[in-house]
């Protein structure tokens, strides 16, 4: 027994030692700012595993933005991203690790479930939290100092139904959604309620789950067999790509309507973007927009990370600038405690009007929600075209 424990400990020590030696180079390669003079911003998100694509995008967006902000030479920030595997338990661990590091502002987490747990910690510890992408209303309900920069799921479901009704887009609607994802199920619930109120006909509801999302053929076929002329997709790009491809192979071409999760569909590697022609979506961000701000962001991001940014990255980028502006306006300095920063930030954010990549003149209510209207776009010739 003792020998076994000894062997185990030895092995752990050895591998960790050896591997830390290899990995150390990468970590120390990053430029570390002087601890005293920087404002420490933390974030957490799934950097490994199934949902890593979202967490990594948020991390990249924040890093890019704070690099630019630091280059302005005004306030200096340091950003640190921790992996939470989209799991609320790990999110709390990540949060604690960040607090040990000395975090003053929380610019995360990425996913709703994690954010709900972290928000409660932030509310209890009085740490200002502004999440780029956790869109569930339960997140901002946790405390007065928790804010979102994305619009809530309620908002999107309602707006989608309204839009479809107003423009008479569909007679029979099929919905393909992820019943195991808070984001997707949240939008679905409000969409369904609103559709019933507006008298839209939902012919097929074809949910999938974490376990069945690998192959969505059945869901597509169900919509096809029911002759739905519009398929509502309150899901993320990675699954939407499968839906569009499979439908195309089966010779099924309905109209598609999605929410902000669909954003980024044009930049999926090796995906035939012609399949996305005519897809309508509500999005706050348009990577193909021609304004200078977006152009510069997209160019820099693509240069640095090798892929085009999606809405998560854009939201994170906005979060960074919103934090910067609020800090500047409120006179936040690096030597303040998280609680002092919190008081200033809450005051500043509720009275500022912020122009970012994902919206103009954004304003925050005391409840933590942002006022920005979902913008409906349609994909034409590989770019977003605004619809009225």
């Amino acid at each position, binding site marked *: 027994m003792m*020998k076994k424990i000894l062997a185990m400990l030895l*092995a*752990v020590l050895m*591998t960790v030692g050896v591997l830390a030696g290899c990995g150390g180079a990468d970590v120390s390669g990053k430029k570390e700012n002087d601890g005293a003079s920087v404002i420490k911003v933390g974030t957490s998100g799934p*950097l490994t595993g199934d949902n890593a694509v979202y967490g990594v995008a948020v991390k990249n967006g924040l890093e890019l933005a704070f690099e630019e902000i630091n280059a302005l030479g005004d306030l200096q920030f340091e950003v640190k991203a921790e992996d939470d595997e989209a*799991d609320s338990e790990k999110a709390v661990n990540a949060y604690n690790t960040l607090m040990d590091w000395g975090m003053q502002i929380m610019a995360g987490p990425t996913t709703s*479930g994690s954010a709900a747990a972290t928000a409660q910690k932030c509310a209890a510890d009085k740490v200002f939290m502004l999440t780029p992408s956790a869109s569930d209303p339960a997140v901002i309900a946790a405390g007065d100092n928790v804010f979102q920069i994305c619009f809530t799921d309620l908002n999107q479901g309602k707006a989608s139904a309204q839009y479809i009704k107003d423009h008479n887009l569909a007679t029979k609607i099929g919905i393909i959604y992820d019943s195991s994802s808070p984001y997707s*199920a949240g939008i679905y619930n409000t969409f369904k309620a609103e559709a019933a109120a507006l008298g839209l006909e939902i012919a097929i509801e074809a949910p999938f789950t974490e376990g069945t999302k690998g192959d969505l053929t059945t869901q597509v076929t169900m919509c096809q067999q029911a002759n739905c002329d519009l398929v509502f997709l309150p899901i993320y790009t990675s699954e939407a790509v499968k839906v569009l491809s499979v439908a195309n192979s089966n010779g099924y071409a309905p109209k598609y309507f999605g929410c902000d999760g669909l954003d980024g569909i044009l930049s999926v590697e090796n995906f035939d973007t012609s399949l996305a022609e005519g897809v309508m979506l509500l999005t706050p961000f348009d990577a193909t927009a021609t304004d200078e701000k977006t152009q510069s962001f997209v160019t820099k991001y693509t240069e640095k990370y090798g892929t085009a940014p999606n809405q998560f990255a854009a939201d994170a980028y906005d979060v960074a600038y919103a934090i910067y502006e609020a800090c500047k306006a409120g006179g936040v300095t690096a030597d303040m405690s998280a609680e002092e920063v919190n008081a200033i930030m809450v005051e500043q954010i509720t009275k500022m009007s912020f122009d970012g990549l994902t919206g103009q003149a954004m304003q925050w209510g005391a409840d933590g929600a942002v006022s920005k209207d979902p913008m409906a776009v349609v994909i034409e010739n590989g770019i977003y075209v605004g619809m009225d």
Partner: protein
Amino acid sequence: MIFLIWLLYIPALYLVYGLRLALAGMGIYLHTFPTMLLHGAVFVGVYYLIKYLKKLLKVKPRIPANAGKRDKTISVYGLVTVGFTAMTALQGYGMLSRSMQGYLVPICAYVVLALSLNLVVGISGELSLGHAGFMGVGAFAGIVAATCAQNAVSDPFLRLVIGMVAGGLMAGVAGLIVGIPVLRLRGDYLAIVTLAFGEILRSLTENLYVGLDRAGLHMSMSNGGVQLQEGGKMIISGALGATGIKPISTFVAGILLVFFTVAVVLNLVHSREGRAIKAVRDNRIAAESVGINATTFKLKAFVISAVLAGMAGALFGLNLGSVQASKFSYTTSIDILVYVVLGGMGNMLGSIISTVVLYLIPEFLRSLADYRMIMYAIVLIVVMLCTWSPKIKNTISLFTYTMRTYWNRLFRKKGGSGK
């Protein structure tokens, strides 16, 4: 004798804690109910530890029959006690980082899960891949019970206990429902069926909506199914799970649960039933031929294990502000299984140690950023090879032997090999 030590023990504790309080400037929980319980538990631990140490000091020829087992039992209690005392002391002196403090309760929960799974995998010899399902049932039942008791019971510890009892009961019922059909199967068939049940439990909780208002508890499998009155509150809402829970789990409660689990598991293992279960594990036919009803005993172990897992789930769930059903998928079951196998089948002490170590490795590897999980995988493989492979084990013992010989040669000058 025991009573005497007990009498001495209480003032001694007050002395120690009082000193600590004076030093750290913390005036908290000396007179509360959980502390009393805890003191009892610590007392038992210390008592056994002393006995163990005495045994170690007395160089006696080993009596093969029961001596080793006894030692191990004592050392399990001792380890938990030492771990608890060390952590509380460090916490008291403010020497624990926030993240370390954050790990304490989840580690307790996982230790209980590993111990209870060890009962099934190690003692009963059945590979179960659905343990997280029971944990999930316990977590959600515990959250619902604790929320319902919010107005009636003001003491958070008592509410936690209510939550854990409810979680344990519900998980026990689930364990019974699962166990009756499952235990008719053997080996890998049993494994796949437990996996299947775990996934079914998860799938059901993922679509569960529970709300609470003045009229009582409302439950439904669809979002529209729960209509609440004014002032009502959703406790569990489908995929989003339970959010806005008030965290009431504490390290003290966690350690108490660990003690409870250790007591239950070890008592079962060393009881008549335990021997029967092991007999069935080692040779089913032989055991049946001497009149042991294999299924009944195995079912008993399975249900007890589910109850403990449910209690751990409640502890786990009531520690976080939000819990999602996706947490209780087979990935978590496998994590727990890894703790058990690495610690050694049927080895409770090993389970505790390996749970703590394996839980902390990914957390300590955070500085490696993107490489974190790949490192964890490599560590896992290497550790498995080092602890199980006969060849590598031989090499290691050869290495340690050589080192010891050198050590003796250098410093002791009187080892068998030195001159």
